[in-house]
C-alpha cells in the first residue's frame, strides 16, 4: 500500500521538476545573444505553468485530492482567481502602457 503511494509522490515530483526545466528552455529560447527580449508568449506560458504547478501541489502534495468538496472547489477557485489577477494585470498593464 505504502509502496504505491510513494511511487505516486515520486512521479508528482518528477513532473513538477520537468515543468521547472521547461522554464530553462523558455528562457534560452527567447533571448538573442544574451539580450533579454519582451515576449507575451513567454510571460503567459510562465504564469500558466506556475499555476498548473500550484494546482498539482494543492492536489497531490497537500492531499486536497482526498479532501471534502468544499476545499477542492475553494483551492481550484483560488488558482482561477490567481490566474485572473496575474494575466489581468499583465494585459491591462500592457493596454495602459501602449
Amino acid at each position, binding site marked *: *500500500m*505504502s509502496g504505491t*503511494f*510513494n511511487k505516486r*509522490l*515520486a512521479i*508528482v*515530483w518528477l513532473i*513538477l*521538476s520537468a515543468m*521547472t*526545466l521547461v*522554464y*530553462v528552455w*523558455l*528562457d534560452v529560447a*527567447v533571448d538573442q545573444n*544574451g*539580450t*533579454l*527580449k*519582451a*515576449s507575451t508568449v*513567454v*510571460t503567459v506560458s*510562465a*504564469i500558466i*505553468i*506556475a*499555476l498548473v*504547478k*500550484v494546482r498539482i*501541489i*494543492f492536489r*497531490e*502534495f*497537500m*492531499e*486536497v485530492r*482526498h*479532501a*471534502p468538496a468544499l*476545499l477542492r472547489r*475553494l*483551492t481550484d477557485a*483560488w488558482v482561477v*482567481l*490567481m490566474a485572473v*489577477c*496575474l494575466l*489581468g*494585470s*499583465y494585459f*491591462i*498593464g*500592457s493596454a*495602459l*502602457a501602449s
Partner: protein
Amino acid sequence: MTNLQEDSSTEQVDRKAAARFVPGQPDMWVFVLFESLLFTGYFSVYLIGRIQNRDLYLQSQADLDLRFGVFNTIVLLLSSWAIARCVQASREGAYRDALRDAFLTIGFGVAFLVSKVLEWVKEIRLGNTFTSNEFFQHFFFLTSIHLLHLLIGFIVLGVAVYQLWSPARRSQQLVETCATYWHTVDFLWALIFALLYVVR
C-alpha cells in the same frame, strides 16, 4: 431484502464520507488562502509596474542567475516531496521513516536558505541592491519576504519533529498542519520564480 440493500448502500456512503478529510487543521487552510491572496496582490503590482518600465526590468533581469532560481525551485520541490512522504509514513505508523523525512525536509530547506544568501551576495557584489532600481526592489522584497516564510517554516518543522519524536504525542493532525504550511512556502516560490526569472 430491500432493507438490507439500503442499509449496505448507506453504509458505503458513510464510509466514502469518512474517507474524505481535510488535511491538517482548517485554520491553517484559512491562513494558506489568505497568504496566497496577499502574494497575488503583490504579484499584480509587480506585473503592472513591470510593463510600465519594460526595458529597465529586462536589463536588470539579465543580471539574475537562472541557475540559482532553478536550483532553489528543485530543492524546494524535493523538500515538499519529503514532507508529503513524512505525512504518509506517520499516517501508517512508520514514525522512524516519518522522522527521517522530516529531517530531510529541514535539510533541503537549509540548502535553499544557503543558496538564497549566496545569490544575494552575488547580486550585491554586482552592485544590485534594494535601492538600485524598481526591479531589484521587487526582487529583494519578494525573495526576503519569502525567506521569512521559510524561516517560520523551520519552527513549524520543529513542531512536526517534536510531535513525531515521542510516542506520547504523535498527533497526525498537527503533522499534516505543519506539512500544509511547508507546501505553501513551496508553491509561493514556484510563482515567485516564474515572475522574477522567467517572465519577459
